[in-house]
């Protein structure tokens, strides 16, 4: 894509380093984020496949890979319990903080938000570069912890004390890595908000902004305000681990039969409050950008305006706001008392309302449309029922009485994976296929894309649907060997089904990789700057967009989804005559 870059602006060709490594161009930074994040997604996925092997065939050697792992991870190829714990913790951490968020916010957000509001770049391009590199350092720290003596963190992605405080050195690396990742998010979210509010081009009023931009703005506010408490908690846990304080260690704690020699007086539940104060808004950080992507894809492929565009915006804003008041629904089991439980049950039921509205508006947009079943549209269509399953199965978890039974079982794993895997990940796939022609100037292969969709769709349901039944039957999460518990061994058939589906799912991703790598270099060139006949501003510029996006600033004349109002079928935002 380099040859297109030197448009008529009269700036010099930049060297490779300035252009691709220490770039301040939001599009390059977006690509850097996206590529890094996809590598981490693959890594996190690869880890969990090894874990699924252990669950399906406890105490048998992992084929091929087992032989390459060090003795402390896989004894004679058989996964050790310690390594199982490592995988559990690092899969969650990597998927959330190094995979999905960097891809959906860092990647898609960086690339699209400035273009969609008609800006030439982010408000603070150097800060943008800094946030990528701070993120990168955080990722390196997390990855490097695998090579520490003693290995990486193994205390779940939630890092609950006291275990995490008395655990091995990997946890210190985890905390350091998190401090970098949080700092990066903070820099990024300041940039996003200022860009979205201040750099909108002429005529781009708030209610003419694409839903994707709205989703990114709400997300940025969540990152900005919810992450600092986790940073504080991280600092406190670091103090406990490095300087021997007792923020999270109660008095008289006994570890391995011995009383700990610490001052005590701390409160382990305090960590849970600080953690979930971030981590609940974080789930909306995981889902909102996907809503945004899906809305764009659906509008383009139904050739209709989004039903209830403003309602959708108000719902997203309300969702973001409410997400600060539901965190303790993860803590019904801590015995926090009926008053608190009641409060958080009520807020949780309230927050489900905007989610349902969002889903309904998207669903109603399909009503009566002559849908173009493109590959991105297939993923976007699948997103809707998948997110619905994920969301609806969350309701019982928000009610304390039901949660007491379901807490910490595979039901929970099934529930939130429906939201983040066939939900968010499918949204992200839709986004990759949808904007690929704009970013690279080349098309992806449709047949491969459809194959990728159908196999992934079937397999991913095979992975996660059985988990609901297992969870309701009482199968706990984070179990190393299912065969030693009678009630768990009982459902081993479902475990095997789920595991093999996850292997098929893994295999299907090679279709995706092959497709995007081949298409990026050898794919069919797009003939038009607007191959999907879309209305938003990213389609109004050259392909790939030049260094400053628009040779001359555009003016916007109408809302983002004016489809089907003229004989042409669509009315781009920047054209005065529709």
């Amino acid at each position, binding site marked *: 894509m380099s040859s297109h870059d030197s448009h008529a*602006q009269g*700036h010099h060709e930049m060297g490779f380093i300035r252009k691709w490594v220490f770039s301040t161009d939001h599009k390059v930074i977006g690509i850097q984020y996206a590529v890094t994040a996809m590598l981490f997604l693959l890594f996190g996925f690869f880890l969990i496949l090894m874990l699924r092997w252990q669950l399906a065939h406890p105490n048998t050697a992992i084929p091929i890979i087992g032989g390459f792992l060090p003795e402390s991870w896989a004894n004679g190829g058989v996964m050790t319990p310690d390594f199982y714990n490592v995988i559990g913790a690092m899969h969650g951490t990597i998927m959330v903080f190094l995979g999905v968020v960097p891809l959906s916010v860092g990647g898609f957000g960086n690339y699209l938000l400035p273009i969609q509001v008609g*800006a*030439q*770049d982010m*408000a*603070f*391009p150097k800060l943008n570069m800094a946030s990528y590199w701070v993120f990168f350092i955080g990722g390196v720290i997390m990855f490097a912890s695998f090579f520490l003596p003693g290995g990486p963190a193994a205390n779940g992605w939630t890092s609950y004390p006291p275990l995490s405080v008395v655990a091995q050195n990997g946890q210190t690396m985890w905390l350091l890595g998190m401090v970098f990742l949080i700092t990066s998010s*903070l820099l990024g*979210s*300041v*940039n996003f*908000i*200022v860009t979205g*509010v*201040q*750099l909108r081009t002429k005529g781009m009023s708030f209610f003419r902004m694409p839903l994707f931009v709205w989703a990114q703005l709400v997300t940025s506010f969540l990152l*900005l*305000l*919810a*992450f*600092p*408490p986790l*940073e*504080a*908690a991280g*600092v*406190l846990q670091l*103090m406990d681990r490095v*300087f*021997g*304080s*007792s*923020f999270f260690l109660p008095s008289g704690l006994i570890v391995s039969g011995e009383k700990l020699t*610490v*001052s005590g*007086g*701390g*409160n382990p539940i*305090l960590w849970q409050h*600080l953690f979930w*104060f971030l981590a609940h808004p974080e789930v909306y950080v995981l889902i909102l950008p996907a809503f945004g992507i899906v809305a764009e894809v659906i509008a383009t492929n139904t050739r209709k305006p989004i039903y209830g565009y403003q309602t959708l915006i108000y719902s997203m804003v309300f969702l973001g706001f409410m997400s600060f008041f539901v965190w303790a629904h993860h803590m019904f089991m801590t015995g926090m008392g009926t008053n608190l439980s009641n409060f958080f049950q009520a807020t949780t039921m309230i927050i489900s309302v905007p989610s349902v509205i969002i889903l309904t508006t998207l669903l109603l947009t399909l009503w009566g449309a002559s849908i173009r079943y493109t590959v991105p549209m297939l993923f976007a269509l699948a997103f809707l029922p998948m997110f619905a399953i994920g969301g609806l199965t969350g309701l019982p978890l928000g009610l304390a009485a039901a949660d007491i039974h379901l807490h910490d079982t595979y039901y929970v794993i099934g529930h939130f994976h429906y939201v983040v895997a066939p939900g968010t990940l499918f949204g992200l796939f839709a986004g990759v296929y949808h904007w690929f022609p704009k970013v690279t100037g080349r098309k992806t292969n449709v047949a491969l894309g459809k194959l990728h969709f159908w196999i992934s769709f079937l397999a991913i349901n095979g992975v996660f649907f059985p988990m609901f039944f297992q969870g309701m039957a009482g199968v706990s999460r984070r179990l190393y060997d299912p065969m030693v518990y009678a009630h768990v061994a009982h459902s081993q058939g479902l475990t095997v089904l789920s595991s093999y589906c996850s292997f098929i799912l893994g295999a299907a991703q090679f279709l995706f990789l092959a497709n995007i790598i081949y298409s990026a270099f050898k794919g069919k060139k797009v003939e038009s700057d607007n191959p999907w006949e879309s209305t938003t501003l990213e389609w109004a510029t050259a392909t790939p967009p030049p260094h*400053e996006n628009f040779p001359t600033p555009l003016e916007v004349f109408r809302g983002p989804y004016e489809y089907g109002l003229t004989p042409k079928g669509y009315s781009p935002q920047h054209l005065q005559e529709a």
Partner: protein
Amino acid sequence: MIVIPYVDKPHPLTGVTNAKFGIWLFLASEVMLFGALFSTLIILRTGSANWPLGSTELNVPLATINTIALITSSVTIVLAWASLKMQQIGRFRVYMALTLLLSAVFLVIKYFEYTHKFEHGHFPSTSTFFAIYFTMTGLHGIHIIGGMIVNAYLMGPGSAMWKKNPEQFTGRVECAGLYWHFVDLVWIFLFPSFYLL
């Protein structure tokens, strides 16, 4: 060249420049950071049967001097900014230097307080009182140091911008000032929370 609008002129809708909007957002996140730590302090304290009285454990007179030093520095940084508004770069340097001097006074006194505690065997591991005291004042100290670096830069090499684009430079000083007020404000909460109550 990229022409990013609203670098030195306020946006008509929000009434602020990009940088000022950015610094307000950053401060909002800082409020959440210290808010979480103050909540931690409250939870630890209310959950403890024998929380010590700050005035018996810590040095109130020294902290009072520090409070005065920081409040004065907030005044001098405003005067530095006001000097720029009156086109007096020389006076700006004087007031900025005073601000830095006062922040240095704060840090030196803090240093003596810390070493005094260490000599008496008070560490973060001694009790949750000292743990949260060292953590919060330490984090605040890091914020002071960060602010000093920025202020020193603006007084020294950074002031070269004054010739090229005085408006943007004044805006930068204003942002540094906002941050400095925030750091000052945090101390105004820390002082009673640890030393007096």
